Each structure stands twice: as structure tokens, then as C-alpha cells.
């Protein structure tokens, strides 16, 4: 494999339209050589039978969720696919994982990113989360759904055709943005092509946004001067060690004095391998921007801590 195989995680709460979306996605030409892993909570899986009609290369992992009890099964399934690819049995141009409705995508990403073999062959391209626009109020009461939304890169609002005319879609969008400010939101699952052409945003458009949900809070921080990467690594690793559960998402761009900046993307305890962005034109403003989305944690405390630490790093640096 010259390039790593992209993994697309399709998640969403129970009954939010994940399988329907998947059947539509699979019609795209780019997924001709894709393999699929479907995870179901129940003892008897049904989704994979629906998908068999479209793709016979579907692996079912049932009786438990791959984010907790079935972690090993997922890693084994991925290794099996990798070996089949290496033998020349399957093309494996990409891999789609459909999670259960109760899965938290973060531990799944962690399993993938911390496996010594798989990390060299796969990377997580994007997390697509389906949101049932009709029942979102009910679903948001569940922590699992909040974690799914916070971990998403692309959000697809499903069942929008069933909404009453008076429904305020814009208000719903704002609510979602407060949990996932960097996600791209699509209304309806028709424009499947766009889900994959949408560029992953590193920082949200707005600088400040208020959360619409009590215990979920977010904060964006801008640093005009470059950050010390080593100090930042120490600080963030310490923060995530203690508060990983409370930090639903960290995203942003860090200017590290060097050419170009570094894009950071983290979900709870896990930080994706940072991406070095190509250097910007000298006329463009260079700064660091970070967004933290927290649950039951005052983001102001994070801000104070980071600023104190940066001051301290500057003094140590001199």
C-alpha cells in the first residue's frame, strides 16, 4: 500500500439513519473498492444484510459495541482486511466503519491510532455523524449522542423532510454548532458527494460562540505570538490526562515559529497525529487558534492555565 487507507467512521444515535446513509454513500464511484465493517449491538445483526445487496465485502461485528467490549474484534477485523488486501484478494481503497447507535467514536479512534500495525496502514479520514432532526431534543439527553456530535467532522441532518413547516432549522443548526463548531453540516443525505469533498475545518469561523446546552461549554483562544511546541505538548498531554473525559474536542492551528503551522485535532483523550500545514504567504496573519469544547468543566480555567503556562514557557525559553 503506497498510501495509507482512509477510514470513514459513520456514527449517529439509534435510528438516526446511519444504514440508510451508508447505502447511499456506497453508490458513489469512489467507494467501488471499499470494504465495510458494520457493528451492531444486538445478537442478530440486520444492517449487514441490507448492505450485502450493494456490497458483498461487509464484515459484521455483533453482540457488543466496538468502542468498549468489542475493541479487539474490531482490530482483528481490520487486520484480516489488511492481510486480504496484501494477498491481493480485495482492493481496499477505503474502509467504512458503521458504529452502533450507542458507540462513542473516540475509543474507536484510539484503538486504531494506538495499534502499532494499523497506524501504518490506515488513517481516519473523517467522522460522519447522522442526526435525526425530528428527535434530536430527545437524543441530546444522551451522553453518547453528545460525544458522537462532538467527535464529528461532517454532520448529516436526516429526516428533515418529515419536519413540520414551522420547525426552526437554523436554531437547530446553531445548537449543533455549539457542540461541534468545526463540523460541516448538511441538511438531508442527498448530496453524498459533498460529504467527502467538504474540507475538514481546523478552526471555526466565528471567534466566540455561546453554548446552548447547560453543561457543554466552548472557548476559542487566539495567540498572536508563536507557541512553544514542546511546552504546548507537555501542557496538553497533562490536561488530557486529568480532564480527557471532560474535553469533548480540541481543535485548532498552532503557530510554532517554524515554516507553516501545525493542525491539532483531538477527541477526548486522543490526539490525532498533528498535521504540518504548508506555509502561508508572508502577508497573511500568522497566529495560533484553539477551540476547546468541554463538558462539566469551566473553559475559563483552561484559558488561564494555558496562558500561565505559555508565559512560563517564554521565561524558561530565554
Amino acid at each position, binding site marked *: 500500500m503506497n498510501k495509507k487507507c482512509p477510514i470513514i467512521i459513520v456514527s449517529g444515535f439509534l435510528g438516526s439513519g446511519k444504514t440508510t446513509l451508508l447505502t447511499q454513500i456506497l453508490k458513489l464511484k469512489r467507494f467501488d473498492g471499499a470494504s465495510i465493517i458494520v457493528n451492531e449491538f444486538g445478537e442478530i445483526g440486520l444492517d449487514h444484510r441490507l448492505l450485502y445487496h450493494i456490497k458483498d465485502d461487509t464484515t459484521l461485528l455483533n453482540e457488543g459495541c466496538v468502542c468498549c467490549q468489542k475493541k479487539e474484534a474490531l482490530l482483528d477485523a481490520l487486520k484480516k482486511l489488511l492481510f486480504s488486501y496484501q494477498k491481493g484478494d480485495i482492493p481496499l481503497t477505503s474502509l467504512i466503519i458503521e458504529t452502533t447507535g450507542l458507540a462513542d467514536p473516540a475509543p474507536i479512534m484510539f484503538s486504531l491510532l494506538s495499534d502499532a500495525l494499523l497506524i501504518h496502514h490506515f488513517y481516519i479520514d473523517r467522522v460522519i455523524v447522522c442526526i435525526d432532526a425530528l428527535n434530536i431534543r430527545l437524543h441530546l439527553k444522551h451522553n453518547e449522542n453528545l460525544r458522537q456530535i462532538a467527535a464529528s467532522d461532517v454532520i448529516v441532518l436526516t429526516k428533515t423532510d418529515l419536519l413540520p413547516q414551522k420547525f426552526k432549522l437554523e436554531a437547530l443548526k446553531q445548537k449543533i454548532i455549539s457542540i461541534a463548531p468545526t463540523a460541516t453540516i448538511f441538511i438531508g443525505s442527498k448530496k453524498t458527494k459533498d460529504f467527502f469533498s467538504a474540507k475538514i475545518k481546523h478552526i471555526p469561523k466565528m471567534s466566540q460562540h455561546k453554548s446552548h446546552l447547560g453543561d457543554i461549554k466552548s472557548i476559542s483562544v487566539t495567540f498572536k505570538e508563536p507557541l512553544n511546541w514542546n511546552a504546548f505538548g507537555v501542557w*496538553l498531554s497533562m490536561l488530557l490526562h486529568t480532564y480527557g473525559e471532560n474535553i469533548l474536542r480540541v481543535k485548532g492551528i498552532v503557530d510554532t515559529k517554524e515554516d507553516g503551522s501545525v493542525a491539532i485535532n483531538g477527541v477526548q483523550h486522543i490526539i490525532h497525529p498533528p498535521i504540518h500545514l504548508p506555509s502561508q504567504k508572508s502577508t497573511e496573519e500568522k497566529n495560533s487558534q484553539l477551540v476547546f469544547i468541554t463538558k462539566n468543566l469551566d473553559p475559563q480555567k483552561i484559558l488561564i492555565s494555558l496562558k500561565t503556562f505559555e508565559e512560563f514557557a517564554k521565561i524558561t525559553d530565554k
Partner: protein
Amino acid sequence: MCVLCGDLILNTHWSDNKKSSNTSVVVGEEQRLWVKNRREKIQFLNKILAFYGINIRDWNTSKFTLFDKKGNCVIVNSLGDLWQKASELSKERMDILDEKLLEYLKSR
């Protein structure tokens, strides 16, 4: 694999890797920078860990060793397992948001 203890080093910590995954790296090319960054990290870490009465040292640029004042020692692979082990060694919660720790850092 670590040549000293035969332990498998399964992955690199995210903070040690900020290069694009597509860039090929010539062996030894970035060694100097890597060691420099490592030393700088140890410098920062020691200033924080001093608050908890522990100290971190480099071990042949492959691992780290954590010491408390009684001489107890723990081997650490990277920043990924450091905080857990430091917390066990010092019997304290490693909390970067702790006001007392921040006050301590300001005073240094």
C-alpha cells in the same frame, strides 16, 4: 524496540510527531532536532514535576526515568504514560488547572 530492555516501543506520542505523514524522512536527518526537543521537554517537565517532588531524567534518549525523593524509580516511555506514572509515584493528582500549581509556576 528499545536496545536496552528489549521492550517494544509501539507508538510515538503525538507531540513527538508533527511532520506530514507523507514526507519521507532520511534516517538520522532530524536526530539533532529530535534530541533538542526532547531535552527541552525534560526541562519543562522538571519544572512542573518539582511541584510534586519528583524528577524526570532522560535514559539514553530512548526512555525516561522518574524519581521521587526517596529514590523510587519508574520507567516512562513517553508523555502518553508519564502523567499516570507520575501520579502513582507522587500519590498526587496531576492537575494542570490546579491554581496552586499555576501560582507555583508563576513564582519560578
